[in-house]
């Protein structure tokens, strides 16, 4: 055995050595301090949760108020009597049935498109070897710096040129590729060990089968995460549907909600009732995909 353990090396390093002479740890956070920290952490979490929840509750509350109650001062947190009639009222004031169908078609189309393009492109960037791969990937990434608003007009002109204005094709086509999604999938596929794919190759799987039967099933958490994000993004998208659709038959829920605003007067309770209804599918979707979703975020290192 060479040398003696330097006692002053101290701290974590010193404690890790099995041969260090028994030196009682000087500072151990007392139970009370730790408890105080836990309480503080919980308090902070609760506060943040409250700030997130408050507008949400306000929305629900407003959706149940009468039109007059909204303008009362000081404002009231809860309606005196819940006006449940606001819901059927709001949802029939516009063809919301149609809107929901449109939003759903839009969102599902976008999800399917983005999952397909992100999984294949992300896989290519992660696993296939070709000239200029990484440079091309950086080029893709750099487009994330361009604000969406900048390309809004060119996108519209393109769709107009194709004669796709006021159609599902026009609504969905420019949303089919998400660079962020490609990035997410690439990072995920990079964590799939090479040996797994080698084993597949030796087992007789071609490149497509390796992707489809081995790598893709392992990427389920990332796919679920991307799918959920894509769905939410599409569902809450107001600007693009507003610009690219014209007829009542093609409008989406978000456009419908916005239309309560200033058309004749702003009907806040109706607008909020429609908004609450619009949130329900998202909440349900989240509840179903939550397990994958959290796993996906953890495994890609997006903590």
């Amino acid at each position, binding site marked *: 055995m060479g040398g003696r353990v330097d006692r002053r090396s101290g701290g974590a390093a010193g404690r890790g050595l099995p041969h260090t002479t028994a030196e009682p740890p000087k500072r151990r956070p007392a139970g009370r301090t730790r408890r105080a920290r836990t309480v503080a952490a919980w308090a902070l979490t609760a506060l943040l949760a409250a700030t997130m929840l408050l507008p949400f509750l306000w929305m629900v509350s407003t959706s149940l108020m009468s039109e007059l109650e909204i303008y009362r001062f000081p404002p009231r947190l809860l309606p005196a009597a819940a006006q449940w009639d606001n819901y059927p009222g709001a949802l029939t004031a516009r063809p919301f049935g149609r809107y929901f169908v449109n939003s759903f078609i839009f969102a599902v189309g976008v999800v399917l498109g983005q999952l397909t393009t992100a999984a294949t492109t992300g896989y290519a960037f992660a696993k296939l070897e070709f000239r200029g791969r990484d440079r091309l990937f950086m080029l893709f990434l750099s487009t994330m710096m361009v604000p969406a608003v900048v390309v809004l007009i060119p996108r519209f002109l393109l769709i107009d040129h194709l004669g796709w204005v006021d159609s599902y094709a026009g609504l969905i086509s420019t949303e089919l590729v998400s660079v962020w999604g490609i990035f997410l999938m690439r990072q995920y596929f990079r964590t799939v060990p090479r*040996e797994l794919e*080698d*084993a597949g*190759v*030796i*087992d007789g799987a071609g490149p497509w089968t390796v992707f489809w039967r081995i790598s893709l*099933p*392992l990427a389920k958490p990332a796919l679920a995460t991307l799918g959920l994000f894509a769905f939410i993004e599409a569902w809450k998208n107001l600007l693009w549907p507003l610009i690219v659709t014209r007829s009542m038959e093609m409008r989406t829920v978000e456009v419908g909600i916005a239309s309560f605003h200033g058309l004749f007067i702003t009907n806040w309770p109706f607008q909020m009732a429609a908004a609450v209804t619009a949130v329900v599918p998202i909440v349900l979707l989240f509840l179903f995909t939550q397990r994958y979703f959290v796993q996906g975020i953890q495994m890609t290192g997006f903590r």
Partner: protein
Amino acid sequence: MSQAGQQRSPDTSVSLVAVEKYFGDVPAIRSLSIEVDSGEFVVLVGPSGCGKTTALRMIAGLEEPTSGEIHIGGHRVDDVEPADRNIAMVFQNYALYPHMSARQNLGFGLKMRKLPREEIDARVRRAAEVLGLAQLLDRRPAQLSGGQRQRVALGRALVREPSVFLFDEPLSNLDARLRVEMRAEIADLHRRLGTTMIFVTHDQVEAMTLGQRIAVLNEGALQQYAAPLRVYQEPANLFVATFIGTPTINTIEGQLATDAGRSVFRASDLTLAFPDAGYTGAAAIGVRPEGLELVNVGASDADLRSTVNRLEPLGNELLVYLDGPGERPWVARVNADSRCTPGELIGIRLDRRRIHLFGGEQQKRLATGTVA
């Protein structure tokens, strides 16, 4: 278990002919030529980065050689897809498909081969029985222990009934006890199947115990290819001598001169004469720990002197670690009941027949055993 394989003994030899592999400008393999006979168990061994795994991956078809030829069963396979080379490979980290049950893992390759359902089931069942996996077939890899996973990985190779098995450090993720167990199992498997097996490891004990022949690699070049005992007793060069054998061979550096038809090695007060090696200059001698005899420090026939540093009594023998005699510490393997104490000055006598002389290009072994 394989009836097909036992009708005639088909040619399942593997040969690499002057194979080279560069990754960019970096050479991973330099002109490697190895012949593996049908049914032979060959171990590729060497320190990490020596190119042994690259060599195996080239045999599997997962890497393409930069130049040279690879033959399996007498056919050149350079342009043959991995799946069509009739090989099976077992990977270091098992490489089991995590989303499939053990059964599906075993059957995947057969399914890819479009074998009939019943045939797949039958082969999976047989392999599972051989490896004691029958109860575990419906579990996923995550629900299996390390040893069980390795068995499934082995089974996946087995069901293919390949002509060549390739193993890429398959035991290095297992704990010591399991490693010994699996080692025996693989040796047993080889005996039963009689299939050609090529096994890559950095562990020289695995190499010595498993291989009928072992190929020692270093820095992408083959150092020696021979039976384990031969490699141990007649190492081709100083690298092989140092790499194979635990504890490591004892070496001391000196100068070699020619004198009266003999090569005379001198290092401080040690002078040894070898048959003429036709070389003069810097050289080294190597003696395995069992080639040392510890004697009284005052003994007139002691070749060298040193101090005892520490002792490792292993029960059946005693390892004595010495502070010298040169710059490197030496080890002696002596009788368990030998008496000596740390700090004690001691004399060393070298077994003349077991002294290796190394020198010249790549420190080749020039001679073993001295002359008068």
